[in-house]
């Protein structure tokens, strides 16, 4: 392991890669602060820039963007009560009340310290867990991969939208359907191209990610007449208060940070459960274990209530890299976009990444420490200035985001057909968003589509057309059962709700 760390250090600590960490954290913070634009958009916007880089630098930049975006999300949660991303919604519960009391500086500092600690503890776990899991994963067969990916897809659907599992599954299937457009990988015949030459190569994941996230998120802000830039201007003019945190305050949040780091990391490793769930769970856990006196403070500017979700969401971001780096299976929309980027660099993540491209594997892990340090020393003092940037008038910001999304895709293909296709997908994504379909399962389904089909083909060929692998291989069986469980649990809950409602209705009639 130590060789790995030193290899990672020597790759990550080159002037170019350190610059990447800085640029990534800064750009991520800025984009993450914009309400509506999340880490997926931030990463997608960076991909065209990184095409010319070697994979390690590209991944380092994107990991930096990811952290930065999460940190930026908490900044807008605290300052203007408008969470930039879902993972920082819980941050606003106690962060915004603190800002209203004139302690925005302190809230931001605590957010930064807890993010830093959560990220660092997460990175240490990753360092231990990833190589161990990678060596286990080497014995996986195609049937195991197949069911693992299906588990990932069902888990994302089960977790992203509680009560809306079927809709999330529909979005997943739609993503899988879009992935079949183009030339079939095994036989080389065209599918769903309708004779169009522009569709023969299929739809690029960058195009789909940009259209369904960056473009449609920016257009949604126009559609909903989002006025938060006005609020930002007020907040940045209003002053931040001191950034100082007393030693006593630090001591009081230390156990919270410790607990939430561990919780956050393990939630992040689970497929489907990312930063959002981790932050809510950590917040809930802290409120439960808090003393009666502390409990009253939650929601009114409790420091523990702020530290818990902030720690957990960063630890979960780190944790979500475990399945990506060791199995090649992304567990969330964000890591799905990173997987797409890695594949386009010509790197196939998975258990063999650890052996074939150890520099990518280790430098990503090491750059996570660097990213955390950069966020702490660079972003925290700069926050007041970045917040001013946010006060850029929205009419200027949105066309620029549209331009960078469109040109980012065009510069890869040099085909104007892609621009039309993006406009069409963006409109479709807006309609789906208004119908309350989650978008992350769609992009995850799209990216996993080819791999699922490939592994299904192999598994079926090995077992001569029979699906007996589902129960004949113990490992496959175990994962299949887990998948069934993630599907059945929400179903039982729905049926129970019906029963209770019918019971309530019946007893209501009787009265």
């Amino acid at each position: 392991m130590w060789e790995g760390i030193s290899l990672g250090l020597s790759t990550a600590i080159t002037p170019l890669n350190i610059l990447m960490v800085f640029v990534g954290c800064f750009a991520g913070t800025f984009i993450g602060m914009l309400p509506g634009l999340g880490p997926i958009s931030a990463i997608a916007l960076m991909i065209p820039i990184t095409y010319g880089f070697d994979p390690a630098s590209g991944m380092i930049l994107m990991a930096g963007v990811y952290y930065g975006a999460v940190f930026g999300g908490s900044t807008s949660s605290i300052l203007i009560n408008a969470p930039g991303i879902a993972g920082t919604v819980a941050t606003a519960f106690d962060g915004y009340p603190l800002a209203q009391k004139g302690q925005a500086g302190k809230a931001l500092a605590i957010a930064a310290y807890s993010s830093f600690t959560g990220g660092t503890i997460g990175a240490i776990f990753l360092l231990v867990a990833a190589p161990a899991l990678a060596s286990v994963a080497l014995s996986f067969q195609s049937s195991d991969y197949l069911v693992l990916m299906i588990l990932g897809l069902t888990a994302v659907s089960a977790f992203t939208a509680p009560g809306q599992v079927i809709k999330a599954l529909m979005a997943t299937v739609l993503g899988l359907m879009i992935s079949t457009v183009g030339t079939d990988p095994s036989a080389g015949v065209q599918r769903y191209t309708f004779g169009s030459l522009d569709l023969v190569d299929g739809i690029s994941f960058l195009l789909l990610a940009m259209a369904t996230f960056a473009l449609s998120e920016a257009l949604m802000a126009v559609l909903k007449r989002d006025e938060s830039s006005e609020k930002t201007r007020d907040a940045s003019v209003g002053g931040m208060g001191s950034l100082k945190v007393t030693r006593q305050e630090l001591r009081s949040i230390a156990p919270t940070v410790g607990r939430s780091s561990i919780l956050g990391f393990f939630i992040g490793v689970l497929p489907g459960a990312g930063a959002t769930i981790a932050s809510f769970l950590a917040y809930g856990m802290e409120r439960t274990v808090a003393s009666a006196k502390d409990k009253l403070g939650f929601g009114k500017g409790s420091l523990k209530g702020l530290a818990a979700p902030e720690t957990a969401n960063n630890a979960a971001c780190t944790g979500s890299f475990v399945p990506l780096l060791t199995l090649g299976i992304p567990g969330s929309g964000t890591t799905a976009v990173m997987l797409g980027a890695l594949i386009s660099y010509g790197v196939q993540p998975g258990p063999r990444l650890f052996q074939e491209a150890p520099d990518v594997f280790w430098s990503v892990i090491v750059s996570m420490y660097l990213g955390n340090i950069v966020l702490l020393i660079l972003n925290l003092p700069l926050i007041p200035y970045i917040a001013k940037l946010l006060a850029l008038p929205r009419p200027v910001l949105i066309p620029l985001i549209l331009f960078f999304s469109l040109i980012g895709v065009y510069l890869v293909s040099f085909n104007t057909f892609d621009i039309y296709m993006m406009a069409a997908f963006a409109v479709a994504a807006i309609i789906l968003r208004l119908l309350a379909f989650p978008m992350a399962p769609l992009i995850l389904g799209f990216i996993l589509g080819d791999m699922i089909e490939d592994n299904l083909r192999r598994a079926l060929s090995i077992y001569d057309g029979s699906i007996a692998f589902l129960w004949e291989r113990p490992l496959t069986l175990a994962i299949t059962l887990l998948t069934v469980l993630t599907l059945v649990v929400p179903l039982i809950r729905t049926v129970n709700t019906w029963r209770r409602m019918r019971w309530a209705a019946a007893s209501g009639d009787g009265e």
Partner: protein
Amino acid sequence: MTLSRDAVAALCFLALSVAYGWHAGSIQLFPGQEFEPFTPRTFPYALAVIGIVLSLAQLFTVMRKPKAGQEREKPQSWAGFDWGRVAALVVAMVAYGAAFKPLGFVIATSLFLAAGYLILGERRWAVVLGASVPVAVVFWALMTQVLGLYLDPGALIRALTS
């Protein structure tokens, strides 16, 4: 009975899945391939079946809910949304794509950005021009001169310069 938006969504998805599965039947197969366990049609067929099952399940769920007498989903109010501006921006994007070849990168981009600012209500000409033309020129210079990518100057410029 009016259909809730979830029911409409489920019906649309049902139609899509059926169409998708029906079209899967016309994917070309090589002779003899139909006897193999896995063909280019296998995966699309599987997806179509899953899609149909999911949309029926969703329809069933939606139809079932109101009967229990409560929690009927409030129809989301689509009024108050700024559809006009979004439509104008989408048209601007399509026009941007169409303008690329004849006008070239710099002019098309400047026009697109300026149109975007105007659509979103920016009326100060200093901003409209100042944040469009320089952005396009600097981006073009960065791409072509620094990164060595080729961006078409456009038929118009070529005609003027030759």
